[in-house]
């Protein structure tokens, strides 16, 4: 470890542990812990606005549904680099995989908060399986994929600890893990969409489709690419002292991602239009819900698609970043729509659901945890750069 020449600025600098970053994140995390304490002593009713008509709210809509989609950058970049030979993206693979791992960890944390009896999480695999359930498939895949991501994150750890033998073993597994990861990601990203197929009368027809699994998978690819750009935006600046690639190379990577994201969004937009045709729903576009659907699809799918394309053509990095942010918001909006906005659109008691501040705080706390973890790891381990002993190796 001592022969690593890159010196990260220590977190506990001259001011000790009480940096502004630590104080703010500490407050957020402490608050989240308190709220979860209330949840487990007074029930979900005390900390959420969930109801019998809205059993799924922000914690499912964001932590599970959006979290999985936004963590898709891991499988997209690792497949590009290791399966399709696009070596120029190698510098961002580790950060994308780490973001993926932390993202999926958030999903599990979100579930542990939201489930009525989270300690029974292993039940489907050890006690009583319900193989007809799309959620069974999702939980199996997420559990396996979290393991894959964990193993894919260990090369950085072993390099940091100087454990050359373990590093070699884990490195030899890369292709197999990448393939397994792509299989698992394809399945659970799409099956998350399939989960709502059971409720055709509860989800508004403009969002409901027999092809919603494909919609979810394609949008996840776009979300993953956008997140790599967004995360790179932040980490490239925060860890600039570690980055070894040239600015020009970093820009080329971003433009490549922008180009791919533009294509992914174009495909997604197309299949949404096809869905209108298949279910003969054109007339619904004239309704209030139709206007809202157009707002989501044109504002957050078509618009960033065009912005990404222009950004790539004109080599405008800022535009690509703006498009990435819009895409990320759009994916979250879509998942929220499918979970609690366009879902129950016509419920008999005309109830609506809005998350309360405690649900929002806990969600922010989970995100904060991921950011803190990413920062801690990237400050110590070769994520944003290549370890000198392993330069140029797989």
């Amino acid at each position: 470890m001592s022969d690593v020449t890159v010196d990260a600025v220590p977190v506990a600098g001259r001011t000790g542990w009480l940096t502004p970053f630590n104080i703010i994140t500490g407050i957020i995390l402490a608050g989240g812990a308190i709220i979860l304490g209330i949840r487990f002593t007074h029930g979900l009713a005390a900390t959420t606005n969930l109801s019998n008509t809205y059993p799924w709210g922000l914690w499912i809509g964001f932590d599970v549904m959006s979290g999985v989609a936004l963590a898709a950058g891991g499988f997209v970049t690792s497949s590009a680099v290791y399966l399709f030979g696009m070596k120029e993206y190698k510098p961002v693979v580790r950060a994308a995989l780490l973001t993926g791992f932390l993202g999926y960890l958030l999903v599990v944390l979100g579930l542990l908060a939201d489930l009525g009896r989270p300690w029974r999480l292993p039940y489907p695999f050890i006690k009583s399986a319900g193989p007809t359930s799309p959620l069974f498939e999702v939980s199996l895949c997420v559990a396996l994929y979290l393991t894959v991501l964990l193993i894919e994150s260990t090369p950085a750890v072993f390099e940091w600890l100087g454990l050359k033998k373990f590093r070699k073993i884990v490195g030899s597994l890369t292709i197999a893990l990448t393939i397994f990861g792509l299989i698992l990601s394809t399945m659970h990203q799409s099956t998350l969409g399939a989960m709502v197929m059971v409720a055709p009368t509860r989800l508004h027809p403009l969002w409901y489709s027999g092809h919603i699994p494909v919609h979810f998978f394609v949008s996840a690819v776009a979300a993953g690419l956008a997140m790599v750009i967004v995360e790179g935006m932040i980490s490239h600046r925060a860890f600039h002292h570690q980055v070894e690639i040239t600015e020009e190379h970093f820009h080329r990577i971003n433009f490549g991602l922008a180009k791919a994201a533009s294509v992914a969004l174009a495909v997604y937009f197309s299949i949404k239009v096809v869905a209108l045709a298949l279910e003969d729903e054109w007339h619904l576009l004239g309704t209030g819900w139709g206007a809202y659907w157009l707002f989501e699809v044109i504002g957050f799918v078509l618009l960033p698609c065009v912005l990404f394309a222009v950004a790539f053509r004109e080599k405008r990095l800022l535009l690509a970043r703006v498009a990435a942010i819009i895409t990320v918001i759009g994916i979250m909006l879509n998942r929220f729509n499918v979970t609690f906005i366009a879902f129950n659109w016509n419920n008999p008691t005309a109830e609506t659901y809005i998350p309360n501040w405690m649900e929002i705080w806990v969600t922010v706390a989970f995100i904060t945890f991921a950011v803190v973890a990413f920062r801690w790891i990237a400050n110590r381990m070769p994520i944003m750069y290549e370890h000198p002993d392993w330069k140029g190796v797989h």
Partner: protein
Amino acid sequence: MTTTRRGFIGGAIGAALSTGTVEAGTTKHFEGHPGRYGLLHDTTLCVGCRSCEVACKEVNGLPPVESPVDDQQVFDTTRRTTDTSLTVVNKYVDATDDTPPVYRKLQCMHCNEPCCATVCLVHAFEKTPEGPVLYHPELCMGCRYCVMACPYYALAYEYEDPLTPKVMRCTMCYDRIKEGKLPGCAEACPTGAITFGEREELIQVAHERFRKHPDRYVNHIFGEHEFGGTSWMVLAGGSFGELDLDEGVTSEPLPAIATSYLGVVPLVVTIYPGLLMGMYAFSKRHEAVAKAEREEAVASAVAITEEEGRKKIAAAAERATKDKERAVNMAVKKALAEAEKGDES
């Protein structure tokens, strides 16, 4: 409370759903357990007395009804079942005409092919041979997918319970049925709006009523076929949409719709490895070919450069030789000329 908006929407959804439906991956047809029980709810007979609500709470040991049963204000809002009220009665008023209000009892419909059971990842629901769909709280993780899935909004959850929350729903008084008794609501109903019996027989009963009183009923048994059919079937004198029941939906069971995509899972698992290894091998080969072409290009460039170098050297050598020859010739000529000059003097 008017519900005409829902009726229209129900029709629109129905039109969308009864075309392009999806397959469960089997062409088999399933009749369900023979001789299973059901209930017939005749809304033309229901007067909204809510005796069924009282009886249900008593039989299940739940807290009593909050407002007295003759309190008409309860009907001002559309209610739904909760974790302490496994059944409620709603009043449906058509604001556009003077027809009398219609009352309907809401509870779990005990579907022939329950979607709650289908979406439960720990198999906590079972469709019993007697008809009722039962829930097993000792398995439940509390994911509430069943609560989300139910098209009849029949399931409730104990959100106030921090550590042992359960899904709460009508059980069709399974224990009472096994003892040969009637479900609590059926026994308590004073007007005969609830009839308990074998499902197939109840369908005959319904048709008999249609035959005897054709002006009283709409000729449709809700729940006979919708989403594969339910154990609780409803008769009405007007539109079912007005009663918050989607009559235009497909008869394809929700389990078929919900699981149709899962057939892709084994396909992805078995096709992707070969496909992706093929892509990987292709990209490796592409790399190797590109590398070989690069090396060849470099080698030939080097060779050409070497060749040109050699030619240049050879040409220079030749020129040098020629220059030398010329110089020698000139020196010889000069020497001869000087020698001649020397001879003449």
